[in-house]
């Protein structure tokens, strides 16, 4: 018998010993970060960055497969006893000797998770983790010239790249309301002093929003640069338009933290038929949130329409895709992404 076969036999036997629980339910009591456990992490430190941003140092469990600079990770953390999942960019270099990773979080108004992480999270807290993902990353071959166009917390994935890779010619335009709001400001200035980066800070409280037309004057050779842009939807929409108009859309890589919502529907009564719960939903709230509010266990992932971790059969009725306004009607086999779909009338979700 091979050793894997042996091991699976032994595991089967252990399961007989622990039924109806699993052996892992007991192992989790003593070693939640072990190899083979559900992926978790432990918060080891929280370092303030600005008045409303902090870097969270996390020791990931043994199952962590590492990340590529620019990627994000989903974390599940209990806030007031309720497990909430959010995605944050990784800001640590990929080869940190102590194996820790960091995320940097900016508290957004009314943001349950972000405020909790920035202001209340305690070292020692166990959190749930997913593997790192996302394709807002550098190509295999290092580009000769790069441009980073960032605003607010859009700096975080880019910081991950800057800490990871040294560039010969890197330019950054970063917007923030005031100088003290610039996350990683002193580290950025160190890079500038070491001549590893050219930086333009736009302080929007003083200068107003960055006008994309000013790009020619700030970075005359921008069309030759491989560009990574991350920030609010307005900035990214303007950038996408600008790059297309100049015939170089393939040079622009963007990362959105939230889906841009274009359309809301009528709402209606939503039935979660497997669990037998029925609630009224408006036309703007994603069905994922509606279900979670109603106590239904909803699968989820990125919560912004990209990972398909939330797909669920639509058994009856119609839903509206919040990003496109498109209506999907129930038919056998129809699956919807609950994180970006809202009720467009009464509907039945198989959960």
């Amino acid at each position: 018998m091979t050793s894997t076969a042996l091991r699976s036999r032994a595991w089967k036997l252990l399961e007989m010993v622990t039924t109806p629980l699993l052996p892992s339910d007991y192992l989790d009591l003593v070693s939640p970060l072990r190899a083979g456990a559900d992926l978790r992490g432990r918060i080891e430190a929280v370092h303030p960055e600005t008045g409303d941003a902090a870097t969270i140092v996390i020791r990931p469990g043994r199952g962590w497969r590492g990340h590529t600079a620019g990627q994000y990770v989903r974390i599940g953390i209990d806030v007031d006893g309720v497990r909430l999942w959010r995605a944050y960019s990784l800001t640590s270099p990929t080869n940190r000797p102590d194996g820790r990773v960091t995320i940097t979080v900016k508290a957004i108004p009314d943001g349950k998770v972000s405020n909790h992480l920035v202001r209340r999270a305690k070292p020692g807290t166990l959190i749930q983790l997913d593997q790192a993902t996302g394709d807002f990353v550098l190509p295999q071959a290092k580009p000769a010239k790069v441009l980073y166009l960032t605003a607010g917390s859009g700096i975080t994935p880019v910081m991950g790249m800057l800490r990871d890779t040294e560039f010969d010619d890197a330019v950054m335009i970063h917007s923030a309301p005031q100088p003290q709001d610039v996350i990683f400001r002193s580290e950025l200035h160190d890079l500038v002093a070491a001549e590893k980066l050219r930086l333009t800070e736009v302080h929007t409280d003083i200068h107003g929003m960055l006008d994309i037309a000013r790009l020619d004057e700030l970075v005359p050779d921008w069309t030759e640069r491989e560009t990574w842009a991350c920030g609010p939807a307005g900035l990214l929409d303007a950038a996408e338009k600008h790059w297309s108009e100049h015939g170089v859309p393939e040079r622009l890589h963007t990362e959105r933290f939230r889906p841009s919502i274009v359309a809301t529907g009528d709402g209606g009564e939503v039935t979660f038929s497997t669990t037998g719960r029925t609630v009224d939903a408006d036309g703007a709230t994603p069905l994922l949130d509606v279900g979670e509010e109603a106590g239904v266990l909803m699968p989820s992932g990125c919560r912004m329409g990209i990972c398909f971790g939330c797909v669920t059969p639509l058994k009856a009725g119609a839903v509206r895709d919040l990003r496109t306004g498109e209506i999907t009607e129930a038919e056998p086999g129809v699956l919807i992404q609950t994180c970006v779909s809202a009720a467009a009338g009464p509907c039945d979700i198989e959960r």
Partner: protein
Amino acid sequence: MTAIDPTAHLTAEQIEELGRELDAIRDEVIASRGEKDAAYIRKVIGAQRKLELASRAVLLFSLFPPAWVIGTAGLSVAKIMDNMEIGHNILHGQWDWMRDPKIHSTTWEWDHVSPADQWKHSHNELHHTYTNVIGKDNDLGYGIMRVDEDQKWHPFHLGQPLWNFINACFFEYGIAAYDLELGKNLHKRRRNNPEFRARAKAVGRKIRKQVLKDYVVHPLLSGPSFLPTLAATFTANLVRNIWSHSVIMCGHFPEGVQVFERRSIKGETRGQWYLRQMMGSANISGSKAMHFMTGNLSHQIEHHLFPDLPSNRYAEVAVKVRALFEKYELEYVTGPLPKQVFSAWRKVVRLSLPNKKPKAPVIVPEREKELVAA
């Protein structure tokens, strides 16, 4: 036997007002659920697992009598915790709001031969909706006993003290059979119903796993202590069964608890539904430890009013609920465990015989809420 409706003095408006007051109590708890509650259930689950592990470890040496006694006691308590404060309450969805997939009514499985999903249907849906409605709520005597004068007597009932005792000893099997509605489904025609067969198979699978674990695997692991360990797990199961049976009997059987007619729940309002839960349930008084070991089903009245509120909050809710009973001049049936158990058993024995005198006419209150007092 008298047929006095103990709620006859309430007007329809008062009943709806009572409903609103109960809703307010519920909303208050829901709004304040949080970190402390989550920490509570996690702590209880962790403690249960450690206790079970430790007890099973001690039982490996159960050849030595002190080890046998300690291990058996520990395992009995662990099994009671698993079924009562943890399993029953999680399967009610009391902790679903935490959104933790490991502590959720749709994923939880317990140390019990009835599979969680079947139990949830018969208990959460049927029993909690139709509490104490004759012919609708099979918990009233589990289909094998007569627990109200109004139920027809049959010579079969002569044996019910014995049925009840056997049921207490093998309670988990009784529940599994009950969830399967075995009595009704064993008739020739129903036996072959594919849906019933699938459910029966699931029960069979669960029983096999549980029996294998308790009576084969763990005794084998104990080597020379095989037989003592087997006796220990058997004893722990027996203790757990008798304990949960007793607690559950106290919930609806003691004297003073009302039983309702099928017709009385037609068009029932929210207020009336609450009132039926109030009059159809009974509590057990006692210490904190007592409430814990009963899975807070000692607060049966509160549990029936709010089956999905976290169990650790029933104690504080009980104070407010009791005040409402007083305000509306209703009887809050409660008492210490021995008294309630005795009261329930006395009823089982009494009703094993036919009614003494002809049935008194049922008084139908004006608002047409027919209710039969025991």
